[in-house]
């Protein structure tokens, strides 16, 4: 059975492996230089305190490969589900070959066990390798990325570490299940893609923020967490503050929500935007006063703070393990369904 699985699978497995090797070579050739550029840049910028500008420049210079590689890792599991998982049973049913192969002296359960095991492990291994390679390569970029593309950001998190392995195993078995239930390859592929996309959306939106209780804390306003201030002279004067999705002292944290609160702890405004009542005709927030820094210092003095709920960057690996574990459990559940269905319900 192992021979048959390998005989039928070796073509696409070899092609995928070849593509991965090409990717690995490209990453291995460019990675060290990227890391060297980064450490040289950091060494230079720490002396004159222009690291923010260096981060922007460095990341901006490599944004295209960064986004491209992230998308590759995000899509790889979907491909495993679409092209390996979905046709596994549905193509047999369409061609009628299940009637031939399931009548050799081998039970369907064993046939499925070997196919699921070998192909699922291959899919998970390939996706895992690809994910770890990209994680290694983009490490300097992850350190310089803005908060919406940092390591903990929903889009990037799924393309780093070991999570792709879980996604690939899950999507593969999802494809097999869809093919078995729908019994036709193309609709099964469409269904697999739809369900995988739904999971990839639901996970960061609904589940991942609660994998560990998020930290809620208040922070002084400053350059790190204030995006912009708008000084408004109408209605007796107020300052409009727009907060960033970042918290000072916890670089790379995944900020789930941030609000402006006043001295008594009441929320001012909504969605990270709020108006602070303060004189804009005289004092530090008057137009005559130079720069916004003194204005912000004055607002801090009045007790306004950023209150943020966030998941710190240190939780990246725990989250990776937990999420991979969740997908592994889902994979096992679907596999059980496959075995049950192929024995009891199919044809």
């Amino acid at each position, binding site marked *: *059975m192992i*021979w*048959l699985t390998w*005989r*039928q699978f070796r073509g696409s497995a070899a092609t995928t492996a070849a593509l991965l090797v090409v990717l690995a070579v490209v990453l291995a050739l460019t990675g060290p230089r990227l890391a060297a550029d980064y450490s040289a840049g950091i060494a230079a910028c720490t002396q004159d305190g222009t690291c923010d500008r260096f981060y922007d420049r460095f990341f901006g210079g490599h944004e295209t490969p960064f986004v491209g590689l992230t998308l590759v890792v995000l899509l790889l599991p979907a491909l495993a589900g679409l092209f390996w998982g979905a046709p596994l049973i549905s193509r047999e049913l369409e*061609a*009628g*070959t299940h*009637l*031939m*192969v*399931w*009548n*050799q*002296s*081998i*039970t369907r359960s064993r046939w499925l066990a070997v196919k699921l095991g070998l192909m699922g492990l291959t899919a998970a291994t390939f996706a895992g390798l690809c994910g770890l390679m990209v994680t290694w390569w983009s490490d300097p970029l992850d350190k310089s990325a803005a908060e919406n593309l940092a390591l903990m950001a929903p889009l990037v998190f799924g393309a780093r570490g070991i999570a792709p392995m879980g996604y690939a195993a899950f999507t593969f078995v999802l494809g097999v299940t869809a093919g078995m239930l729908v019994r036709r390859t193309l609709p099964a592929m469409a269904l697999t893609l739809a369900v995988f996309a739904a999971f990839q959306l639901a996970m960061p939106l609904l589940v991942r923020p609660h994998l560990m209780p998020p930290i809620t804390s208040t922070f002084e306003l400053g350059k790190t967490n204030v995006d912009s201030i708008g000084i408004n002279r109408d209605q007796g004067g107020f300052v409009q503050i727009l907060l960033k999705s970042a918290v000072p002292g916890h670089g790379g944290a995944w900020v789930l929500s941030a609000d402006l609160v006043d001295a008594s702890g009441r929320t001012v405004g909504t969605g990270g935007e709020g108006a602070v009542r303060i004189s804009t005709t005289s004092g530090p927030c008057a137009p005559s006063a130079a720069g916004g820094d003194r204005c912000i210092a004055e607002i801090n003095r009045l007790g306004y703070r950023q209150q943020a709920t966030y998941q710190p960057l240190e939780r990246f690996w725990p989250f990776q393990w937990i999420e991979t574990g969740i997908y592994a459990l889902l994979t096992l559940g679907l596999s059980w369904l496959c075995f049950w269905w192929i024995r*009891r319900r199919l*044809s």
Partner: protein
Amino acid sequence: MNAVLQAQGLGRKYGRRWALRECTIDLPAGHVVGLVGPNGAGKTTLLKLASGQLEPTAGTITVLGGRPAGGPPQLARVGFVAQDTPVYAGLSVADHLRLGERLNLRWDAAMARDRIATLGLDPAQRAGRLSGGQRAQLALTLGLAKRPELLLLDEPVASLDPLARREFLQGLMEATAEHEFSVVLSSHLVSDLERVCDFLIVLVDSRVRIAGEVDRLLATHYRLTGARRDPDRLPADQHVVCARHTARQSTYVVRTDGPIHDPAWTVTRLGLEDLVLAYMDQDTVDRRAALEVRR
């Protein structure tokens, strides 16, 4: 002899439609059994139930004394060549033989190789490029080299031209003569089965109409032609299979164990094809009658 296939009240439903119902048969070993009936009569369903590809909705079925597809040993004893003789288009002929060797408990590799060589198939050729007849032969080779005790073939010759048909059936006959095993072969054409079968099951409208040895069937069925007469005026031991009446004449096909003495009848023997057609005809007559009643 012991039975190769026993079914008791066997039935299978697809959704709300019965594909096979109340099927009770007992097939003795050592026969080449022809399973004949019109398209959609339930032949494939019966064979799939026997091979364990389907689970019955009602009743029980035992094949060679075991539950169909009940485990590797049972699978090894029953060969199944499905309709349209499916093979993997991407694998070569040699790959298929290897598949058989790897996936079976007993496998007659020499026989498989010899058969492929005799048929003139190129082992390196992909199965997807074989002609229909060659593909059927490859599928049959897979079924035979398994050395089953019972080989089930579902319309194996339906898509073949007359020459390929004859070659296929000839190959099958040679194999049964050489290695003694039982065969159940389905077809919607009696002419295919006439040459090879010594046992016949007629399946019409998801029910078994009659099952028996061909010789015995031919010996107990007669066509009676004579002046018009009602069926209830026939002797009690004569079962009417089908009847046709014109204004003056009646034609009956009857089954009886005893001889026919009534001199009013012109008695003729039936060929296998006529016999099967009589059973199918009975069905259409019934259906027509039902329609008329409904009107």
